[in-house]
C-alpha cells in the first residue's frame, strides 16, 4: 500500500542513551546496506543482528559503529521490512546516522507513522484503531509544540522575510503572464530574477551553515592533520591530546587505521581525525589528483598542515597547498630545532593570509601559539557561535537542503536562458519548501499578493 520507506529515531533522545534509528518500508534493507560496512545485509537471514559501521557516503568516513537488526516482512511490527540501527554514541551519533539514512532516500516519518503502518497492514487489530488515532493526534501535537519551541523567533522571522521576497518575485512573473498587456507593470527580467534568487540562495546557504554550526558545537570541529611522512603529524596529535583534556577517548575495538580524538582546545571542541587516508594525503594527491583530494579534505572544518623545517619544500607540499586552497587551514612549520632547509618565503607566499605557526614539538615549543591560532580561527572567523539563528531540527535541515537544490535548479535554468515562467516553477517550489519549515503552505497567498501588489482590472 505505502511504497516509500520511512525512518525516525525511535528511542527517547537523550545524551548517552542507546538510540535506535528505525526504518520501515520496501527499501529499508537496501538503504541501510548502501551505507553499512560489514556483512551484506541484503543476504542475511531475517531477525538477525550484525555488527558493522555506518559510512558517510559523501566523505567515506566512518560515522558510527553500530549493531543492525534486520527483520524482513511480514513478521515485523509494521509488516514491512524493518531495520533498526543501534547507535551508542549518544545524540550526536544517532542524528548523524539519521541524516545519512535520509540522504539515501528514506523519508522522515510523520508522528505515529510506524504505528499507523502497523495498523494499515493489519498488525494491530481493529479494537486498537482508536488508540492508533489517539496516538497520531497526541504525537502530532507534541511534535508541533516541540518544533515551535525549537524554532527560534529569529529563524521564523528570517524565513518569513525570504518567503515574502520570493512571493513578490513570483507574483511579478505571474502578473506578466496573466496580464501581458499591462504596461505599468515592468516586465520581470532574467537579471532581476537572478539577483533575487542569488540573494535568497545566499541566505539559505548561510542557514545551512548555521545548521552545521549547531552540529559542530555538538560534534566538534572536524580537524584533519595532513603533511608528508615524518613531518610530525602523530607527534602533533599526541601533543594536542596530552596538553588538553580529551573529551572522548578512543572507542575500544576501533581498528587501528582510524583514530579519532575529541579535545577541547581553549574551549573549541576539536574532533581530530587522523585517518590512514588523510595521513597519506600525498599519496591521495598522487593517486586521485588535486581536485578529488580536495573533495575529501573539504569535509573537514579545519586542516592542520604540517611542514618540515628541516627539509626542502617538495612538489608534494606544493600540491597539498593547491588541494587546500580556500579551505580553513593553519600551516605548522615543525622541527625548528633542526637546521633550516625550508624556503620560508615560498611558504609565506603559498599560505597567503592563512595563519602560520612555528613549532618544535620535541622541545614543546610553539604549542601555545598553535592553540591560540586554532581558537582565533574559530572565534574570530566566520565560525561565530554568538548571535546565530539556530537551525537544528533534522526536518528543517532536510527542507533547507531541498530549498537550496530548488534554487540551484532555478539558477541553472536562468543560466541556460530558459523562459522565466519555467524557471519560476523552481522558485515557487523554494517558497513552498520554506513554508513547510514554518508550517505555512497556503497557496492562496500568491493570488492575494498578486492583487495587492499590482493594479489590475478592466
Amino acid at each position, binding site marked *: 500500500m505505502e511504497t516509500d520507506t520511512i525512518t525516525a529515531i525511535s528511542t527517547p533522545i537523550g545524551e548517552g542513551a542507546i538510540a535506535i534509528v528505525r526504518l520501515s518500508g520496501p527499501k529499508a534493507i537496501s538503504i541501510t546496506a548502501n551505507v553499512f560496512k560489514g556483512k551484506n545485509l541484503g543476504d542475511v537471514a531475517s531477525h538477525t543482528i550484525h555488527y558493522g559501521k555506518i559510512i558517510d557516503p559523501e566523505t567515506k568516513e566512518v560515522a558510527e559503529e553500530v549493531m543492525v537488526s534486520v527483520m524482513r516482512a511480514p513478521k515485523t511490527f509494521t509488516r514491512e521490512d524493518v531495520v533498526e540501527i543501534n547507535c551508542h554514541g549518544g545524540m550526536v551519533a544517532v542524528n548523524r546516522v539519521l541524516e545519512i539514512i535520509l540522504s539515501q532516500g528514506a523519508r522522515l516519518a*510523520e*508522528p*505515529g*507513522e510506524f504505528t*499507523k503502518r502497523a*495498523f*494499515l497492514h*493489519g498488525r494491530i487489530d*481493529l479494537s486498537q*484503531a*482508536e488508540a*492508533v*488515532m*489517539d496516538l*497520531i*493526534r497526541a504525537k*502530532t501535537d507534541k511534535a508541533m509544540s516541540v518544533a515551535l519551541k525549537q524554532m527560534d523567533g529569529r529563524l521564523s522571522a528570517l524565513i518569513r522575510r525570504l518567503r515574502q521576497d520570493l512571493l513578490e518575485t*513570483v507574483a511579478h512573473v*505571474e502578473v*506578466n*503572464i*496573466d*496580464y*501581458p*498587456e*499591462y*504596461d*505599468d507593470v515592468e516586465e520581470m527580467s532574467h537579471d532581476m530574477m537572478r539577483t533575487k534568487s542569488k540573494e535568497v540562495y545566499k541566505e539559505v546557504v548561510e542557514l545551512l551553515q548555521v545548521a552545521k554550526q549547531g552540529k559542530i558545537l555538538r560534534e566538534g570541529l572536524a580537524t584533519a592533520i595532513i603533511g608528508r611522512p615524518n613531518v610530525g603529524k602523530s607527534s602533533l596529535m599526541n601533543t594536542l591530546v596530552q596538553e588538553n583534556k580529551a573529551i572522548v577517548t578512543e572507542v575500544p575495538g576501533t581498528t587501528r587505521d582510524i583514530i579519532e580524538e575529541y579535545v577541547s582546545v581553549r574551549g573549541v571542541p576539536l574532533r581530530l581525525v587522523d585517518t590512514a587516508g588523510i595521513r597519506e594525503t600525498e599519496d591521495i594527491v598522487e593517486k586521485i589528483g588535486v581536485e578529488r583530494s580536495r573533495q575529501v579534505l573539504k569535509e573537514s572544518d579545519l586542516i592542520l598542515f604540517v611542514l618540515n623545517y628541516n627539509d626542502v619544500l617538495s612538489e608534494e607540499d606544493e600540491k597539498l597547498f593547491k588541494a587546500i586552497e580556500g579551505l580553513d587551514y593553519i600551516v605548522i612549520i615543525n622541527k625548528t630545532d633542526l637546521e633550516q632547509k625550508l624556503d620560508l618565503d615560498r611558504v609565506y607566499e603559498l599560505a597567503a593570509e592563512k595563519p602560520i605557526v612555528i613549532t618544535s614539538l620535541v622541545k614543546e615549543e610553539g604549542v601555545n601559539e598553535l592553540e591560540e591560532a586554532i581558537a582565533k580561527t574559530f572565534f574570530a572567523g566566520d565560525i561565530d557561535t554568538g548571535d546565530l539563528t539556530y537551525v537544528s531540527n533534522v526536518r528543517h535541515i532536510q527542507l533547507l537542503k531541498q530549498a537550496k537544490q530548488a534554487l540551484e535548479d532555478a539558477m541553472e535554468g536562468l543560466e*541556460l*536562458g*530558459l*523562459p*522565466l*515562467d*519555467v524557471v519560476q*516553477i523552481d522558485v515557487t517550489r523554494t517558497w513552498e519548501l520554506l513554508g513547510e519549515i514554518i508550517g505555512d503552505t*497556503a*497557496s*492562496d497567498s*500568491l*493570488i492575494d499578493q*498578486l*492583487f495587492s501588489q499590482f*493594479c*489590475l*482590472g*478592466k
Partner: protein
Amino acid sequence: MTYDAGHYDVVVVGAGHAGVEAGLAAAKMGAKTLMLTLNLDMIAFMPCNPSIGGPAKGIVVREIDALGGVMGKVIDKTHIQMRLLNTGKGPAVQALRAQADKPMYIKEMKNIVENEKNLTLRQGMVDRLVVEDGVCKGVVTETNAFYRAETVIITTGTFMRGKVLMGDLEYESGPNNQRPTIKLSENLEELGLEITRFKTGTPPRVNSHTIDYSKTEIQPGDETPRSFSYETTEYITDQIPCWLTYTNEFTHEIINENLSLSAMYSGMKRGTGPRYCPSIEDKIVRFNDKPRHQIFLEPEGRDTEEVYVQGLSTSLPESVQHGMVRSVEGLEHAEIMRAGYAIEYDAIVPTQLWPTLETKKIPGLFTAGQINGTSGYEEAAAQGIMAGINAAAKVLGKDPVILDRSQAYIGVLIDDLVTKGTNEPYRLLTSRAEYRLLLRHDNADFRMTELGYELGLITEERYAAFKEKYRLVEEEKKRLQKLIIKPTEEVNAFLETAGASKMKEAVKAYDLLKRPELSYDLLAPIIHADPSLPHDVTEQVGIQIKYEGYIKKANDQVARMLKMEEKKIPEDIDYDAISGIATEAKEKLKKVRPLSVGQASRISGVNPADISILVVYMEQGNIARLAN
C-alpha cells in the same frame, strides 16, 4: 395548475456560455435535451468585454474544443482580431485571445444550437424546480409548463435576484436590462441551498464616430493566422484594430470628487466584487500613486459603432460618467451609448457541489457557470460542458467524468470551486495551476481528444486526424533520437551564424534540440527536417524535447498526487465518529465531503495529521466490512 410540457433526459436552464455547452454536450452524447432561456435573441450573449481567451482562459477554450465543445469554433468564425499572448515567454503560458464580434457570436451560436438534433430550444422563464423525494424531477416555467426531467442543469448566470447599481439608482434586473430571475432564486434557497451574494461591473460603451483615434495608439491583431479550434481551417484575414489610451489626473480628480456617489462607495453593504476586475473607482483609491491607467478601446463588432471602454468599469452615476469619459485623451467628444453599471446577484456556495457539478443536496440537479461563483465566459463554458457530460452520463448510466488538476485547467477550476469554495467571483489564472507545464495551449488536443471521442463528442474524422498527428509526433521524436549530428565545419558554421555556441562532439539531434537557443525551425536544415510535416507537429516535437526535464519532474509530482486521488473516501463516511480529527477539519470535511484522500488534503484547515487519522479510520471500516 401546470400542464405537462414533455419529458426530457436533461433540461438546461439558461442559454448563456455555460448553458449552450451543457445542452450541446448532453444532446451529442445521446440524451434527449431541452434548453430553456429568457430570450432567444440573446444566446451566449456577452454582457461585458467583447473578448474570449487570454492567459489560462485561452487554454480552457482549447480544452473545451478538444472535448468537443463549440466556443472555440464559434469565436474562430466571429472574431475581429486575434493575438497570441506571451510569445516571448515559455510554451506553458502562451495563449490566444480574440476580440469578438458580439452580434455575430450570438447569431452563430444560435445557429449551432438550433441545428443540433436531440436538442430542443425554447424561450421561457423557469420559476421553480420540481423535487420529489429529495430528487430533482423537472422544472416549471412562469407559463405553468411542467417539464419532467431526469436531470436539470441550472446555468442562470448573473440573473439570480440581479440588481443593477449606478450611483444611487438601483433596480432589479438581469445584465443589460434583461429580466431578473427572482422566483427560481428564492426557490433554490427554499430547497436548502446556501446562497452568497457577489457583484461585478461593466464600463460604458461609446460611439466610434465620436472617438478621435489619432490621439490613441493602434493595437492590431497578429498577422499570422491562428485558431482556437483544432478543426478550424478557414481564417479571418481582415482584422480590426483596438486602440490604447490613458486616464490622467483630470480623470482621477473627477472620480475622487464623486467617490461618495458611486454605488460601490456610498457605504451601503454590498456583495463581494472580484479583486481582479476592480472598478476604476477601486483602482484610483487603492493605487492612488499611479498617475495614469490604461484604457483599451475595443469595437463590439463589425456592424456596430459601439466601442467598449476597457478600464473604466464603474458604478458612478451616469451624470458623472460623461465627464469621466471625456477627460480621457481621444474621448474628448465621446458620446456614451450605454452607461457603465454594477450588478449584484445570488450565487450558490460551490462547496455544495460534487466534482461532477451535481448538487449534494438535490440529486439530479446540476449547476454550472457564474451561478457557481465564477466569472468569465470561458469559466462558464468549461463548467457547462462538464455539467452537460455528467448529467447525460448519469441518465445514460455511464461513469461520471472528473478531470484532475494535472489533466486540464478545467480540472483545476472545478476542483478549486468544489474543494476550497471562493469568497469572490472566481477567475482562472495560470498561477492557480500547479502543473502548468503540462497544461499547455499547444497540447490541449493531446490531453482531451481521446476523452472527447470516448464520450461521443468528437467525430470519427477529427479523431483520425488527431491520431495521425500523434503518430507523426512520436515518429519524429524517434527519428531525432537516432539521428547523430557530427560537429562538422558546416554544422558549426551554421550554429555560429545562428548565434549559438559550437559543438565539440557528435550528439543526437534530440539532445541538440534541448539547447534553449536552438529551435526546431532553426535547426531544420541540420536535422534533415521533413518539410511536409505540419507546423503543429514540429512545434509539438520541439516543445516536448526542449522541456523534457521539467515535464518529467512535473509528471513525477503528478504521480504522487494521483496516488492520493486513488484512495477513495466512502460516500457514507461519518466524520463525527472519528475522534482524532480536529474540530475545524471535521467541519470542513463534513461540508465538502471529498471523494478522495487527495481532495481532502487540499481543503484548507485539514492538516496531515487529520489525513493520517482519516486513513486509519477508513481502513478500520474496510476491515469491519471484510469481517462481515
